[in-house]
């Protein structure tokens, strides 16, 4: 079992927020930009990989109790989103790669544990 910080380090993701937040376990990833799908389907040990970077993403991360949000394609959170992430202690990571490549990297790292 890997925690979010170990995953971030192993995958080379950088932090937008939450570098000191609780190290929750991560078992997989859920990749989607439609938030209604995310909230209905993502598990509470799934990292969310998305290019959606508005404040609603952070609300969904809180409600669905997700261990972290990984913004792919080098996308940056908008100002309000980042404020909300910091306020709620959400770990928001950055991946320079597209969503698929990011997910593959996560898969490889989780598989190797």
């Amino acid at each position, binding site marked *: 079992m890997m925690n979010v910080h170990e995953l971030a380090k192993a995958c080379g993701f950088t932090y937008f927020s939450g570098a000191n937040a609780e190290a929750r376990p991560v078992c997989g990833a859920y990749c989607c930009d439609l*938030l209604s799908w995310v909230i*209905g389907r993502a598990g509470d040990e799934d990292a969310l990989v998305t290019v959606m970077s508005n404040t609603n993403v952070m*609300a969904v991360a809180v409600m*669905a109790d997700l261990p972290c949000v990984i913004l792919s394609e080098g996308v940056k959170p908008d100002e309000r989103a980042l404020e909300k992430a910091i306020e709620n202690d959400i770990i928001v990571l950055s991946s320079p790669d597209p969503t698929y490549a990011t997910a593959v990297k996560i898969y490889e790292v989780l598989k190797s544990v």
Partner: protein
Amino acid sequence: MEPIVLTYQVDGEDFSAAGEASSSVKKTLKQLGFSPDVIRRVAIAMYEGEINMVIHADGGEARVEITQSTICIILADKGPGIKDINLAMQEGYSTAPEEVRNLGFGAGMGLPNIKKYSDELKIDTELGVGTTLTILINT
């Protein structure tokens, strides 16, 4: 335990602030010591309902009644009402406007998600009058 009742006004103006009531309920349930699974189900169901009120009804009122065995969420709005509940309950069916879809919502998952995460869902709706959702979650 005496029932604890929380009430909120859900603001219909600000889509990006949607979720404040759900967020507050989540915190209260955590303080009261409910299990993470129950808290998650309540948060998801209520957040979806809150989003619906913002998208379709210009906001509304939320009332949450908490007892040891059940959490009852009542979401009442004075929106347009739901024309066809069977259609609205189908995953993928949505009447949400384009700008809401651009924010990642309006995928037609709201009511199905609420049903999925609750133990009971009652929908009272009247065209031109409003909609009241009663969502029951057993702890």
